[in-house]
């Protein structure tokens, strides 16, 4: 599709004069360059988002023509104990994973931020699990925590500790998922923090030491404030990831045992592609998305307020 060539904008442009001469055909070329990206990103981003909203007000099984039912899906979902349980599981998972991942990431980054022999080897080992797919992690840890043949119970047995049910135990499965997510997710926090630590000027830390600041004081007054933007990024990023956890749940527990690990995205997937209740699934997805939106706006406001306080002090 060709788009009409738009005359160059009349607003004063900061671009150098030489651009004027090649303004001819510029818009045409630009549209040709962006059209594949625009088509896919808008067609498979904006359009589905709107479609999903419509779908959430329909009753649809993805095969027969959908029926308009207004806000009925949202009414039902607000009363649905399974959905409520999924929200609770997701929040528990997120509330455990995010602080632990960030604290462990910072701790390990401080530990690994020194020049000793084999430090590269340690850094590599801590980060390697991050590149392993959630599927492979899930398969590996289903094996390690298998109640009969798993390494974990074998070690417990050797240590004369009673063996555990792990993924078969509805009181342990969700926490086990957090543990695995930490194993693979901490490495990312570590490398981001390490990059942040390397940006802190050595002179500043040495100056603090000369002024008599101990390790704790140096950390509190220099390192921690300098890492603040990195921490904010990690909190936002890890929270968004945690609220959308799916792959690992699908591979290890499929939401079980006794629905104890059904998280929101798993609930949405199940409703849409197992029960074929697509309208209801879309409504559930929108509830989660609304939560994400409120959260990210909240974080942005909190951050802005903090920034103001920091600049005032």
């Amino acid at each position, binding site marked *: 599709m060709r788009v009409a060539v738009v005359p160059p904008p009349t607003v004063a442009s900061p671009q150098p004069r030489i651009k004027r001469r090649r303004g001819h055909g510029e818009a045409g070329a630009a549209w040709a360059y962006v059209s594949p990206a625009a088509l896919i990103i808008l067609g498979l981003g904006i359009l589905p988002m709107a479609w999903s909203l419509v779908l959430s007000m329909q009753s649809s099984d993805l095969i027969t023509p959908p029926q308009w039912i207004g806000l009925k899906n949202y009414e039902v979902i607000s009363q649905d104990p399974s959905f409520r349980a999924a929200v609770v599981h997701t929040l528990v998972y997120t509330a455990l994973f995010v602080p632990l991942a960030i604290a462990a990431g910072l701790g390990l980054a401080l530990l690994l931020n020194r020049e000793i022999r084999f430090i590269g080897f340690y850094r590599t080992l801590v980060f390697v699990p991050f590149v392993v797919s959630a599927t492979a992690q899930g398969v590996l840890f289903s094996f390690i925590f298998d109640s009969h043949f798993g390494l974990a119970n074998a070690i417990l047995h050797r240590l004369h500790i009673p063996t555990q049910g792990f993924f078969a135990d509805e009181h342990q499965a969700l926490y086990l998922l957090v543990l695995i997510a930490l194993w693979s997710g901490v490495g990312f926090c570590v490398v981001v923090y390490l990059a942040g630590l390397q940006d802190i000027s050595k002179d500043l830390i040495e100056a603090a030491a000369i002024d008599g600041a101990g390790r704790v004081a140096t950390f509190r007054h220099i390192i921690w404030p300098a890492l603040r933007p990195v921490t904010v990024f990690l909190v936002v*990023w890890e929270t968004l990831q945690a609220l959308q956890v799916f792959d690992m749940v699908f591979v290890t527990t499929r939401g079980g045992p006794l629905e104890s690990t059904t998280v929101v995205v798993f609930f949405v997937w199940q409703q849409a592609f197992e029960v074929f209740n697509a309208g209801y699934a879309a409504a559930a997805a929108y509830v989660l998305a609304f939560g994400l939106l409120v959260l990210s706006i909240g974080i942005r406001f909190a951050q802005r307020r903090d920034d103001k306080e920091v600049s005032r002090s």
Partner: protein
Amino acid sequence: MTPVSGRKRRGWLPFSPWHFVLAPVALVFGLPLLWLVLSSFMTNAQINKFPPTIIPDSLHLDGYRYVLQNALFPRWFLNSTIVALVVVIGNLLFGILGGYAFARLRFGGSKLLLTLMLGTLVIPFQITMIPTFLIMKKLGLVDTLGALIVPSLVTPFAVFLFRQFFLSLPREIEEAAWIDGCSRLRTIWHVVVPMARPALSTVAVLTFLTTWNDLAWPLIAINDDHNYTLQLGLATFQGQHRTQWSAVMAGNLIAVLPVLIAFLAAQRTFIQSLTSSAIKG
């Protein structure tokens, strides 16, 4: 010796005492992967006893033989490779073109389009997955590799990353090429792209990683096991062979190995790509 540096040399050990802390940490992170490799070379008999063997006395290829004879792992490997390659190339090509247009060319609606594109970055996957499935169905792509390729062929992330990178490049070199009579596309190919190597590797690495490791979308879009990706095949294989752990681990290692090798070969690029997009983004 300066006491202020806080780094007193401890003479009683031939190595830094920090190794006492770091070695257990390394063990926690390394042990599961070591177990993955070890158990894939064990027989089911070695695994299926309680308590299971921790250090096997002999290594076997039973698991690999089973996986290669009774499952479609080679096929899935090929599918994953095709999808990842095409998606990476698509993101580089369309990302460069789109990013260049946003960074260097003036066209009506560019601001709006860019805002919309950036907006799609924050749309969660579970919102778009059902309609995307319906769109793929309309296009006749469901249950083909096309369904896995098309939605990821270019991401707003790639376009935006290239745009940011091009904005940081000096304009003068491009203008010199332009004055020398180079066409716009030739300028991009011969002048801009060679300068954009860090951006190219960042987009390639992150796109490869997310595409190769994805499970949710292939699970939705693919039914026929001949069109599975490795991750989907592995998940399904494990579901069907709950007690044949040696074969499952062999398959698991096959699925993990390409990413592991790529990572170990280009560790610096991987980590720089991740941290740069993290700290700037």
